[in-house]
């Protein structure tokens, strides 16, 4: 076939690619979403409601909710005791049947698979959390969960995408502390705390301040003493941008009237090799990631980053909170939805994820990652209140230290 008009042909191809791309961009705006909800939510991402008044009142269902949770706990205990059959490989077993019975379900929901956006790549902490809590949640829901890893900008790309989707409960996201920090720094066109509906918070902080085994500091106080005398000379590494690490250090530094040199590395690999090579002095890192290096004797803990002491690691090491220093943020993971999602659906999802986390397969995962010590569970309302508190505290710290939030705005 001879190509007659190359320019025309060229234009046709460009346009068809454009069309393909455009199809991709629209993603799956819900087809069977409640009419009305759909269009508006997709059009104005983010600024759905700027004021503090949020979805709020769950007062009437409050008493009910406590009963539901009690019933779930009861079923979980029965599973634990082996009284109810539990088989994660099947579609449903006695435990799942009982849970479906116990959890009040909104009418017609879920009528199709639910998409969970994960703001980080496959195999990372957020991914592991989401997929593990999803395993039994999927069975209780009776619908598949579609995990959609959409990494970028410490989780904000996924969150930004969530706001462009219909607020019908079929697109939710797993979020971490970074989202609150980015909100406090006012980086995003939306406000995380004001614009999402909080479903559940399930994980807590497991960070530890580590040093290389041959470091001369014996205790956390040794390190702080040195830091107090030599501002900026103690180099601490933590995860990349918009992380809780840096704000914990800012708070710690302000307490001892000094500063730390914060060296962020995006991947855990860079952080660990920097510590082992002596490029940094202290590593602020989740226990689970570096357990092996600890057991191998290459690194040792100075203090627990939050207020929890890990009995199985070293009960004699203090936590930062024990020592009387402030810990402005935790490191949690949880589930959120667009702000306009029906409260009934939010409550239902809360109960499903809560129940899933009580079952053996998620519990085993928690133990594996040392998350079982951290706890961290909060229901939607508490989660929101805590997120607000964290945002205020971080914003205040950022202002106090002139953290260049100004440069963050375009």
């Amino acid at each position, binding site marked *: 076939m001879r*190509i007659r008009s190359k320019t025309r042909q060229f234009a046709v191809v460009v346009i068809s690619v454009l069309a393909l791309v455009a199809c991709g961009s629209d993603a799956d705006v819900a087809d069977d979403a409640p009419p009305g909800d759909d269009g508006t939510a997709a059009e104005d991402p983010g600024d759905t409601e700027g004021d503090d008044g949020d979805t709020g009142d769950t007062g009437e269902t409050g008493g009910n909710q406590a009963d539901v949770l009690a019933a779930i706990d009861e079923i979980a205990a029965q599973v634990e005791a082996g009284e109810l059959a539990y088989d994660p490989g099947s579609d449903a077993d006695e435990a799942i049947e009982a849970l479906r019975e116990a959890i009040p379900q909104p009418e017609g929901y879920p009528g199709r698979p639910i998409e969970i956006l994960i703001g980080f790549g*496959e195999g990372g902490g957020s991914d592991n959390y989401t997929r593990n809590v999803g395993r039994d949640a999927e069975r209780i829901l009776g619908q598949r969960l579609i995990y959609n890893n959409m990494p970028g900008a410490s989780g904000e*790309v996924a969150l930004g995408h969530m706001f462009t989707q219909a607020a019908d409960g079929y697109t939710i996201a797993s979020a971490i502390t970074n989202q609150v920090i980015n909100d406090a720094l006012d980086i995003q066109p939306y406000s995380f705390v004001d614009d999402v509906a909080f479903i559940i918070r399930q994980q807590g902080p497991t960070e530890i301040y580590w040093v290389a085994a041959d470091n001369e500091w014996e205790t956390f106080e040794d390190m702080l003493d040195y830091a107090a005398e030599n501002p900026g000379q103690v180099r601490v590494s933590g995860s990349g941008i918009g992380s809780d690490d840096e704000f914990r250090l800012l708070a710690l530094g302000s307490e001892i009237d000094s500063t730390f040199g914060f060296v962020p590395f995006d991947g855990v690999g860079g952080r660990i090799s920097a510590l082992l090579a002596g490029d940094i002095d202290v590593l602020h890192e989740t226990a689970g990631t570096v357990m092996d290096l600890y057991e191998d004797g290459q690194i040792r803990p100075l203090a627990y980053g939050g207020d929890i002491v890990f009995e199985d690691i070293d009960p004699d090491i203090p936590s930062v909170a024990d020592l009387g220093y402030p810990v402005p943020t935790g490191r949690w993971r949880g589930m959120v939805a667009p702000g306009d999602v029906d409260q009934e659906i939010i409550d239902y999802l809360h109960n499903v994820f809560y129940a899933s986390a009580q079952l053996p397969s998620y519990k085993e995962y928690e133990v594996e990652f040392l998350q079982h010590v951290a706890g961290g569970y909060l229901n939607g309302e508490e989660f929101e209140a805590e997120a607000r508190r964290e945002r205020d505290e971080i914003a205040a710290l950022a202002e106090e230290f002139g953290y260049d939030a100004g440069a963050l705005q375009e």
Partner: protein
Amino acid sequence: MDLLTGIGSVLEPFHLLLLLGGVVIGLIFGTIPGLSGITAVALLVPFSYVLGAEAAIIMMIGVYIAATCAGSLAGSLFNMPGDVMGAATARDGYPLTQQGQAGRAISMDITASAVGGFIGTVLLVLIAPQFLRIALRFGPPEFFALAILGMTSVASLAMGSLVKALLAGTFGLLLATVGLDPVSGAVRFVFGVQPLQGGIDFIPAIIGFFAVAEIFHALYYGTGSGGYSKEDIKKVPRFALPSIADLKWTKWTMLRSSLLGNFIGMLPGAGSTVAAFLGYGTEVQMAKDPSKFGKGEIRGVVAPEAANNSAAAGSMVPLLTLGIPGGAVTAIMLGVFILNGLRPGPLLFRDAPEIASSVFGALMVASVVVFFVGLLLVRVLLRLLTIPFEIFSTMVLVFAVVGTFAIFNRPIDLWIMLICGVLGFFAKQYEFPVSALVLGLVLGDIAEIGLVNGVNVTRGSWGIFFTRPFTMATLAISLLLLLMPIYFAVQRRRERAADAPTREPVG
């Protein structure tokens, strides 16, 4: 860790079958522009629940090694590399195809990959601990120096005009700065497009710059199809062994690149991509006649291929001994280990030695399998060159769109791909080397983080770049490599000026 036990375990029928399956999947995903090895490995993650850690890892290694090799096949055949490393190979592979030597190009491509993977694994077993010790010394300043060294190969990627290569490289660096600042978190060059905060990933960019641009270009000029007939293909033997002459000609190239690639692979964060470009750049710099490169020099195919497959093996070292993933694929593997209750790190060799030796065995067997399966497929691959261009380009565009989206599920990546496609079209039109641009994009992040954190770890002193031996040596080599072509060019001009006065270059 016993290599023989590992090989034994991999040769069990079930494991071998998985490995074979992995290699085939890897070859397919790697060859099709848009579907990269990362996508294939990520798709396998859910199966690891069923297969168990050992079997899943063996299969993933098959995919990884095969995809690393195949990533450049489409680069050689159509100038549409599926991955960054293919961008280096395409520089010389595609001209070979245009000269009617596609069979030679891809059989050498596959051979070099297999040899690279094999040497890489041997090195892994023999000298990994020593290498690792050096690799661990690689702090931010060394990464910065390494990125600078990589950038000096921009000159080797020039197509005629050095200025255009530099402009393209710089534009690549500029693209690398889009998104959130990796250290301070400032929003850069996003222009209010929120999803751009995630930055420009190089896979969508490469698919745009190469595959999409190539299709635009071919359509605009009404050219297309590789111009191969069925008879041409029949000339290639069924099992397309490379010629002895080619092997002899490139044996040192293979060895050099494998050594270099293996070391680069061990550096967490650098990975096979940088290895391919460094392998190519080094080979051009070391050649007595660098002018042949870019026009169909077989060493230009061998160097990046041997380097990146050797790097793939090397990247297992930090993963297995420290639990540090070196790149996207190893990061996914780390996830699989952890999901199956294994924790890669210093204790893996004590707690689960069979896994570690299986990994080594799988790497080695996979390299051999890639060699045989790959060479058997040469004719099948060449047949792709006979597909009418209208059909072929449509297929590639569909795969490009699907594949680009599948990596991170981000709609923005599709726009990036499309815009890069248009940019790539014009770049080709005005002879800007897009491979230099891609190099800038890949190295930009590494250089930036290295520089900023390098200053950070020394508490604000710039002296670190001149006091650490490795950093200084690397920077010195970079400077030398940078000045040498200029020196030669000046000398050549003098000679020419002595012969006959030439026209002053414009601009």
